[in-house]
């Protein structure tokens, strides 16, 4: 039986000592989990070693930790894989990040995660009295929001979030995914209010830096960042919500520029962004002027360093065949409903596998 070394970050709040590292040797078969190893060490060597855990099947969400720096569940991380990634043969286990440590591997989820969940008004708000029977809704819409329902609140994404690392006020990936669960639910009657709220909050949907850390670590394929991007799509494309964070303006300016030129003109992106996509409005909105002022040194610096020529800054060439880009825009944007392919619904190899096309699984 292989011998594994766990290097565990320990902290006893009652000892007055700072956190420290302790190593434990554990004999277990390679297919067993890191949680099994921690529990083995706890059972046989030191009962004071503390970790929340319960189901051992990646469904209760208790055992979120960082293993070799990656936020994940201890129960569905195989020892053999963890040892391979470990440094100097040891499997390094630490408490999750972005949350205060209470003891050993136990962090304060209430102070961060649950507070943020509470922030997004996490319950369904239908209009009026419920129907006599069930609400009738599109079957795919239920699968669609089930992706966010699949969240087990383990905190791995919160722990890994690179925005939270610099802005603790950020609502964060788990809570925003939870928000999408209601925004995407056709039974909810407050879609626009919810979107407005999350778009206007300086720490809301536009505070996500699009780093994919949450997508990478989520053990349940919730893909929180994808849900945040959907919130943005709903806010801008469906509801035209013009937020104070410039989310709408930035997206509109960017999208319009590509429609016009085919490639991006950074020099025009900035001023247009602050005018909700319009260069003119950017000149007359006081807030926009202030923001632009803050950016001005950057542009000047770009010019003086020889990085950007005045010509590049002021003129941008249209692509050859730009009419084709415009045609595609026209075709897509003239549709009443946006088309989205959710790989959570069709599968990563959804329509490519035999028997898995839309007839395959839709019958009742």
């Amino acid at each position, binding site marked *: 039986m292989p011998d594994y070394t766990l290097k565990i970050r320990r902290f006893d709040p*009652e000892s007055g000592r700072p956190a420290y590292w302790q190593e434990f040797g554990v004999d277990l078969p390679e297919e067993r989990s890191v949680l099994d190893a921690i529990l083995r060490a706890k059972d046989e060597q030191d009962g004071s070693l503390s970790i929340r855990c319960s189901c051992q099947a990646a469904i209760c969400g*208790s055992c979120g930790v960082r293993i070799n720096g990656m936020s994940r569940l201890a129960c569905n991380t195989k020892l053999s894989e963890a040892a391979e990634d470990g440094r100097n043969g040891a499997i390094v286990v630490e408490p999750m990040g972005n949350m205060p440590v209470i003891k050993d591997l136990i962090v304060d989820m209430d102070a961060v995660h649950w507070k943020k969940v509470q922030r997004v008004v*996490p319950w369904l708000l239908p209009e009026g009295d419920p129907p006599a029977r069930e609400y009738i809704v599109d079957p795919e819409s239920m699968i669609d929001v089930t992706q966010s329902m699949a969240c087990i609140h383990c905190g791995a994404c919160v722990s890994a979030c690179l925005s939270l690392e610099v802005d603790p006020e950020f609502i964060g990936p788990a809570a925003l995914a939870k928000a999408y669960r209601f925004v995407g639910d056709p039974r909810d009657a407050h879609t626009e209010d919810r979107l407005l709220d999350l778009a206007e909050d300086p720490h809301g949907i536009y505070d996500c830096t699009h780093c994919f850390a949450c997508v990478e670590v989520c053990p*349940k394929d919730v893909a929180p960042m994808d849900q945040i991007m959907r919130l943005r799509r709903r806010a801008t494309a469906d509801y035209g919500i013009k937020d104070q964070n410039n989310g709408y303006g930035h997206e509109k300016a960017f999208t319009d520029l590509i429609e016009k030129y085919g490639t991006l003109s950074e020099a025009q992106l900035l001023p247009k962004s602050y005018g909700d996509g319009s260069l003119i409005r950017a000149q007359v909105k006081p807030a926009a002027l202030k923001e632009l002022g803050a950016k001005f040194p950057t542009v000047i610096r770009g010019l003086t360093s020889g990085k950007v020529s005045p010509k590049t800054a002021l003129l941008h060439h249209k692509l050859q065949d730009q009419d084709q880009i415009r045609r595609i825009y026209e075709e897509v944007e003239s549709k009443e409903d946006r088309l989205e392919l959710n790989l959570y619904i069709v599968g990563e190899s959804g329509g490519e596998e035999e028997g898995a096309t839309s007839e395959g699984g839709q019958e009742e």
Partner: protein
Amino acid sequence: MPSHDVLVIGAGLAGQRAALAAAEDGASVGILSKVHPVRSHSNAAQGGINAALNPEDSWESHAYDTVKGSDYLGDQDAIEIMCKEAPNEILTLEHLGVTFHRNEEGRLGTRAFGGASAARTYYVADITGQAILHVLYEQLMRHDEVYRYEEFFTTTLVLDDDGHVAGCVARQMRDGTMELFAAKTVILAAGGNGQIYNPTTNALICTGDGIAMAYRIGGPLMDMEMIQYHPTTLAGNGLLITEGARGEGAHLYNAQGERFMENYAPNKLELASRDVVSRAEQTEINEGRGFPDGTVALDITKVPRKRIHEALREIVNVGRDFAGVDITREPIHIKPGNHYTMGGVKTDKDGRTEIPGLYAAGEVACVSVHGGNRLGANSLLDTLVFGRRSGKHAAHHARNHQMPEPPHSHVDDEEAKLRELIGRERNGRRVSEIRTELGRTMDEHVAVFRDEGGLLEAAQTVQRLKEEAKSVAIDDKGNVFNQDLFGAIELGFMLDNAECAIVGALERKESRGAQFRTDYPERNDDEWLKHIDLTLDGDRPNVSYSEVTITQWEPEERKY
């Protein structure tokens, strides 16, 4: 001292449903749980929840299936209530936001499940329990009139001088403070006792705390020998593969490639009730037709890939992460494994126990709607229907009752006990050793097939372990999250549960539902169509009997 009209212990589906129902009725409610509510084991219910909601279906049909599934040990009045109230319960959940699967018309869609004569299982992919649990928790977050005590470990229930429940003592896990709770009524919703087995599909928290605490203050337990082995669990670690897999069309094969259920249940095949399928598998394995690792094969590859993706996503992950098998491409090895306790704290149709003011709902309780064998997808229903009924009844009861004022000595006594435990010198066995031996013993002797010799051996072992448990010592001397301490307390609860299960199994000299005695292989309605009640007497359970309620379905031979 925190005081509430209704104090709920346990925050899984039964507890949360009870709390919401009591609050709706205007009671002041507190809900205590040793884990954060969304960590509760209700999460693990994958397949769905039964209800005769389709116009073509009827509650009578659902009730009959349940009665037959219970091997006629279920109380038919309670079963009728559960099945009648099921459709409304589903609709309530739907209105609260559960993302139930829809059919093409956008209406609630169903899947087939074991032991059922119609497809009446409503579901959310294969995370039904999780989805409902989280939606109920959303409601708890919304209604701040329900006070939540998250990560509070209850050590004992408290009675007043008249024997009416008066509250409980609990330890706040985060800082170790002991708290006395006063309550006009207490609803136990602390779940089952699967951890007395090893392996088990149950979470580490399922240590039978509620069952033991009720038993220790004199509450009778019922049918504790009725312990379900689920037909499809992973060989190594006991993890669950949902019955939904068979509901979607998966087959079982022995090592010779035979679809052996044809020999045991020619009509329902893989969808016979769980006790039947588990026994069939165990017979195949015992008679040498299993695989060398003591398993048979579950073949899910028959199910269309897109359907697997949509409806069985979680077990794809379980197969991949915990068995290294891509279940969409190859069969997976499974065997029967400990899963559910049909028995528990004896209650009536409103969740009332025999102790005034004390209620129980969910797996901790025995109403009994499951009798000798629970049908798949009836457990969630049980938690919700009887959780709600307990909550409502408790709220009413509280209205006509004064707030008790239990003396502080209760806390002092508990604190002294725990201090002694923490301060104890190490000279005995470790908690983990005793727990492991208990689990192995139960899985060896109190499993799918039982006989007197094995049960007596198990009884002896458990007696010895009880003695050894008195001198266990722990390493952790601190106040903050002293899990070592909680482990020792849980061990005591588990040993009481195990003792009662064995006593019940020895007592029942027949084969019914999950209890199959190789030395008494027939069902014996003349002598044993009755519940076995266990009440603490000294430090041993005293056996008595109570009648099974029969309303419209007389016992008959059970065929699938």
